[in-house]
């Protein structure tokens, strides 16, 4: 009899724990994980062209390199713009020196290019001074960062792609035309 009660209590307790944990896990699932990015220019705490991890959490855009971590409050961001570009797979000094390779080897190397996403932000510091920052990241990541920033209070002059498609009244017609 006592054993039955013990099992019942333990079941109830485990159910309670599950119920309390479940809502806490939901926001974690919507927040994008940190992604590898390169800070091209703009953040004062890291040098230009620094590699690191970019994520949006607790109302801030966080860039963490091996040496330093910079945070920009999402509410201070007055513009977020995404774009696409391509870059040399072998860049930097090695990429430059490779141009001297014989038989057009350097030219062949320069043809190896990878596509990247670019995210550009403009934000104000506590004194009202305007700053800009540019990040490059793997293709398809910029839009998720932009949406996360907008959800946490950042502004933009160009709405995100997801919002455009959800708001557009022409979407069903456009879909019909493509079909």
């Amino acid at each position: 009899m006592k054993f039955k009660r013990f099992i019942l209590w333990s079941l109830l307790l485990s159910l309670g724990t599950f119920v309390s944990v479940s809502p806490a896990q939901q926001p974690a699932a919507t927040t994008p994980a940190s992604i590898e990015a390169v800070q091209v220019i703009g953040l004062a705490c890291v040098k230009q062209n620094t590699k690191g991890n970019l994520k949006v959490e607790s109302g801030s855009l966080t860039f963490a390199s091996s040496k330093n971590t910079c945070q920009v409050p999402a509410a201070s961001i007055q513009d977020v713009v995404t774009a696409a570009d391509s870059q040399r797979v072998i860049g930097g000094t090695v990429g430059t020196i490779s141009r001297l390779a014989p038989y057009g080897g350097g030219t062949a190397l320069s043809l190896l290019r990878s596509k990247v996403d670019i995210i550009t932000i403009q934000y104000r510091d506590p004194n009202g001074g305007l700053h800009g920052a540019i990040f490059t990241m793997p293709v398809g990541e910029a839009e998720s960062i932009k949406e996360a920033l907008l959800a946490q209070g950042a502004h933009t002059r160009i709405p995100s792609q997801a919002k455009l498609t959800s708001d557009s009244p022409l979407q069903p017609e456009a879909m019909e035309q493509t079909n």
Partner: protein
Amino acid sequence: MKTIKRATILWIFMAGLSAIPLLGEQPTSPAKPPASAIEVEMIQPGEISLPAEFQVALYENLVQELQKNGGFSQVYRDGDRNAAGASGLVILHTTVTNFKQGSELKRDVTTVGGATSITLHCKFTDKDGKAVLERDITGKVRLIGDNLKATDDFAKKAATVAQETLASGSTSADSSKSGYKNVI
């Protein structure tokens, strides 16, 4: 009669000699009070379709170059409230007048084509909005580097112009280094 002739020739000769040092001197422009602080306004794309990353790279490179080589004791960003109380402040307004986005790949492969160039009209004004200096400055990347390197080239040239003509730490009034001529 001979004495008068000789005296006249001697006088002309002496007058000519005394004029030689004057010939070397440039006409001096009225001295402007040197600026000790500068506020950099955000780059205005004007009627040019300028990608956001170029706009931000131009602005950030310009601020950094003015801090490093501009010769100003203070460099303020657009909207900085501290600029309001700064003495000897000049404000830099920049508008893009020409932009040609080249291709790094083309530059790598052909070595002659694919150059990126960007021209900006730079207007330095005082606090009251009176123009102090106006220049058109072009940034280019012709051979090595990505397209954004043109923004770095522009910023270096603009900082040199500001340092030579406006900053309190400037050494000369002419623009011998930058080679740009004043618009006003």
